[in-house]
């Protein structure tokens, strides 16, 4: 019996992490793959979601012997903390976007966002009264923990289902946005920003929109994750985590959801999470360090050999109006465009 539960535990954990990473990848893909907006501070938005969900789910800081200090603690029932968390991601995206998304060259902008990510962890660690500093917030009540025993296997599979529902919702939203005129405007902005302005697109507004939507999606992924692991600390969202998601997209393929799925499976889930289940052959510092070194090598390799990733972006083929002859879509791949 315990053997079965052991494998259940592994499967549940991997599936929930896959779901969380998929949601995050879909959000980042919308920002970078579809709209060409760089967000090297992406992980901060996942953290915003996680902290918000935690603060709204947990009781006041004086509880449990008062060993933590943080704001809030309103002890709201599921799904309220998750909804508020998603909104929080959108709200925080506004000032960050207004400052960071000015018309800066792409790498300059990336560097600025990286600094934002660095300073965010510093602020949280240096002001412990805010979010309990480097210790982080723990003992977060699991969502629906009063209905099912949170330690049971049944609860675990329920959580997988919950995660799957969130994944599906995000997938549907992202797909709908990408296929709409808004999605087309984003892609035009990605391809050539100056010309996009010349054809009537308000590039600033488009950038803010995708930044806010992406921020909300990232926050949701954080809420789902914190509900599962019941704790959240600055260790979980250091600046390299954003890089892991970018690696996932570059490996999987930019600009399409299948690529996001492939990337989410291969990089954050298998590579980072999956290896923790293997017997550690050396001390934890070495295995953690090796993981990041492998990620670094993987991304350099992919950028050199296959920058478009595994699954390329699909062409949006439109049929001519009924009165004209049906013409075939030309058989070119987006990889053929330089």
């Amino acid at each position, binding site marked *: 019996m315990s053997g079965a539960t052991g494998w259940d535990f592994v499967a549940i954990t991997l599936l929930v992490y896959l779901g969380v990473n998929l949601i995050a990848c879909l959000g980042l893909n919308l920002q970078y793959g579809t709209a060409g907006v*760089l967000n090297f501070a992406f992980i901060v938005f996942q953290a915003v979601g996680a902290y918000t969900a935690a603060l709204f789910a947990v009781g006041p800081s004086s509880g449990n012997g008062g060993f933590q200090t943080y704001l809030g603690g309103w002890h709201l029932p599921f799904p309220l903390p998750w909804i508020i968390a998603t909104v929080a991601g959108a709200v925080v995206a506004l000032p960050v976007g207004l*400052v*960071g998304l*000015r*018309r*800066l*060259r*792409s*790498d*300059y902008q*990336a*560097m*600025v966002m*990286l*600094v934002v990510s*660095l*300073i965010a962890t*510093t*602020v949280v*660690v*240096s*002001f412990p009264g805010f979010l309990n500093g480097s210790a982080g917030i723990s003992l977060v009540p699991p969502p629906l923990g009063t209905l099912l025993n949170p330690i049971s296997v049944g609860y675990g599979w329920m959580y997988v289902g919950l995660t799957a529902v969130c994944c599906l919702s995000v997938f549907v939203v992202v797909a709908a946005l990408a296929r709409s005129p808004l999605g087309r405007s984003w892609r035009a902005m990605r391809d050539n920003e100056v010309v996009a302005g010349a054809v009537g697109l308000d590039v600033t507004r488009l950038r803010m929109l995708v930044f806010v939507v992406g921020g909300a999606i990232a926050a949701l992924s954080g809420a789902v994750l914190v509900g599962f692991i019941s704790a959240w600390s600055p260790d979980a969202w250091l*600046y*390299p985590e954003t*890089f892991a998601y*970018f690696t996932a997209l*570059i490996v999987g393929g930019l600009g399409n959801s299948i690529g996001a799925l492939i990337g989410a499976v291969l990089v954050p889930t298998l590579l980072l999470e999956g290896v923790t289940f293997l017997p550690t052959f050396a001390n934890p*510092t*070495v295995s*953690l*360090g*090796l993981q*990041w*070194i492998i*990620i*670094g*090598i993987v*991304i*350099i390799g992919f*950028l*050199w050999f296959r*920058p478009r990733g595994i699954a390329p972006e699909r062409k949006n083929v439109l049929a001519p109006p009924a009165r004209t002859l049906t013409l075939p879509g030309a058989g070119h791949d987006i990889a053929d465009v330089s």
Partner: protein
Amino acid sequence: MNQFVLIVGSGLITAALLAVAGVGFTLQFSVTNVLNIAYGSIMSAAALVAYAVNTAGANLWVSGLVAAATGATFSLAINRGVFRPFEGRRAGPFTLIILSLAMSLILENALLIVGGPHFFSYGQLGQPSVRIEGVGFTPSQVVMVAVAGVLMFVVHAMQKWTKLGKAMRATATNPELARSRGVRTAIVVDLAWVISGALCGLAGLFMGIIVGAFNASTGSSFLVPIIAGVVLGGIGSPYGAMLGALIIGIVSEAAASIGGLSALKQLVAFAVLIGMLLLRPQGIFSSTAAERGLAR
């Protein structure tokens, strides 16, 4: 204790670090158009190697040379091994910065594996024997500021009066034109990375001396004030880097001293960065930033 002297003194010490680091960082950008995020990790590497050498018995001057050599080696290796091949393939600026971040992670985690996760510290480096108005500075701190000052002058002299400096400026402005005029741009670029790498390495040693304790990740955390100083002064301009470092150094120390919280240093540097981006993203000495199209 005269708080003004304390602020200016510690501000100058921090500025010494930020200036040496910033000039190196901005030099790499000016000559090769790359924002090298791995810079912080190279600083950490140099700091750790210098510490090892110092623990083995060498004095700080030798450690300084070792640090500079480490920085130069790693920087040259990164440029030759990664940036140049990708630039040959016409990689865009975003690809290059992702690559520099990849190398930063590889280097930093390699350092973690080799050196271990614990922190290193030089401890008390001598007595605070230099006393001004009741505030004590250790000899190593004073030497640091002096060395930084000398280096700034050397950089200025090199830029203005030597053939190499002129070649670097020509390559920075227009590589094709420089090449057609006979400048051996490949060698100029290599030398630029060696020099800036040496500055990076030396800054790593300074960092080890200034902070209470450091490890493989400390260099990257210093990217916040370094980048703030460079952006403030105008990226691509060595004089901008010096000015930016001075302002950030003094202002952040003032904030920490008045506010009583050491974390304010980073926060103030960040606030200055945000302010510059909102008001004047090209920085004070803006010519390089403007012509490279960094901010429109």
